[in-house]
């Protein structure tokens, strides 16, 4: 924890502090869940308000949702391929939307107005648990995608084009979730820290460029995560031309 010289609420900085909830023997990071519920609530609100009365000539929020849907469909189709992308569009799209709203919510929602006994609210993606959870889901889903589409022939992928690739492909299965989770976690946490440190040093104007850069990074990170997830799934379901 960086000590606060100014006693302003926005100039405080806490790293690695969590609001612990205990259920039986289990520890939960309460602040992550609180902010993720806000994020999920926002997402559902947007989605429900946009799809309540849909028409062939789109109006208002429906336009935005259709744009998003189209964007995500293109992303999934490009990475996964024409044949299988329909099954995975909801997953990849949810990852993108959830991460995007988490990241932007972390930067745009004035969380500091809410006092917690310990820890502070922020982007749920700035917690390693969230990113590892999503990265593991991606791993599970590409294994599932490959196995359900190709059965045990999926493992041919490990020895293609030559069996020399086997150790590298096995290592890849570990590095994929690792790099996915740490990339997202590191970027968002670093972004929050930079903004917080700048705000701590010079509370006026100076953090603004870093904040804008942060918004940009946040969007890019959401896109990267979703694209890589789709790419891994696409790799798993890809049929070699025999």
């Amino acid at each position, binding site marked *: 924890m960086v000590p606060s010289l100014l006693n302003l609420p926005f100039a405080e900085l806490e790293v690695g502090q969590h609001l612990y909830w205990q259920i039986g023997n*289990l*520890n939960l990071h309460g602040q992550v869940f609180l902010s993720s519920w806000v994020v999920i609530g926002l997402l559902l609100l947007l*989605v429900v308000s946009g*799809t309540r009365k849909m028409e062939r000539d789109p109006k208002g929020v429906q336009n935005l949702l259709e744009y998003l849907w189209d964007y995500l469909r293109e992303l999934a189709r490009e990475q996964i391929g024409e044949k299988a992308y329909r099954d995975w569009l909801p997953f990849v799209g949810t*990852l993108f939307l959830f991460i995007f709203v988490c990241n932007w919510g972390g930067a745009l929602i004035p969380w500091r107005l809410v006092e917690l006994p310990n820890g502070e609210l922020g982007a749920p993606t700035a917690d390693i648990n969230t990113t590892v*959870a999503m990265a593991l889901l991606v791993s599970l889903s590409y294994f599932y995608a490959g196995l359900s589409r190709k059965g045990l022939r999926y493992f041919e992928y490990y020895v293609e084009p030559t069996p020399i690739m086997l150790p590298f492909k096995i290592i890849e299965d570990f590095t994929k979730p690792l790099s996915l989770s740490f990339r997202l976690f590191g970027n968002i946490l670093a972004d929050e820290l930079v903004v917080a440190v700048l705000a701590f040093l010079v509370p006026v104007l100076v953090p603004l460029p870093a904040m804008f850069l942060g918004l940009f990074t946040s969007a890019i990170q959401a896109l990267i995560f979703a694209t890589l997830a789709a790419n891994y799934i696409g790799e798993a379901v890809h049929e070699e031309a025999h």
Partner: protein
Amino acid sequence: MTWLLLAEAGVPEGGLFDLDATLPLMAVQVVLLTFLLNSLFFRPVGKVVEDREGYIATSRAEAKQKLEQINRLEADLQDQLRGARQAAQSAIVEAEQEVDRLYREALAEAEAEANRTREKARREIESQRESAQAQLMSQVDQLSAQIINRLLAA
């Protein structure tokens, strides 16, 4: 680490890389969100968008078909128009020829009539002149006879 602290039943001290039950619960949350968004967002919006794409595709196909039909009709009508133009042209030519022929016939007839009339008149004049001449001759003869008679009587 977390599980060591749990043995002491105290609140863990936290840290940046503090992995605990937040992970699986967050995973469950994300999966639930996936299903929720699938039924609230991806499926309905996808249905609307794909319906519209289908509608546009069929409308386009229909419009294309109609355009083709129109083109066919237009070509057909153009053919008919060309035929009608040709028919009209040939009718005009025919009529002109007819008029020309009639004119020539009428002219020839008139000329012949005129010739005939002139010939007749000439013949009449000739015959009248002849008769007049004959009359004159007879009168001359008569007069000469009278003159001779008078002279002889004197």
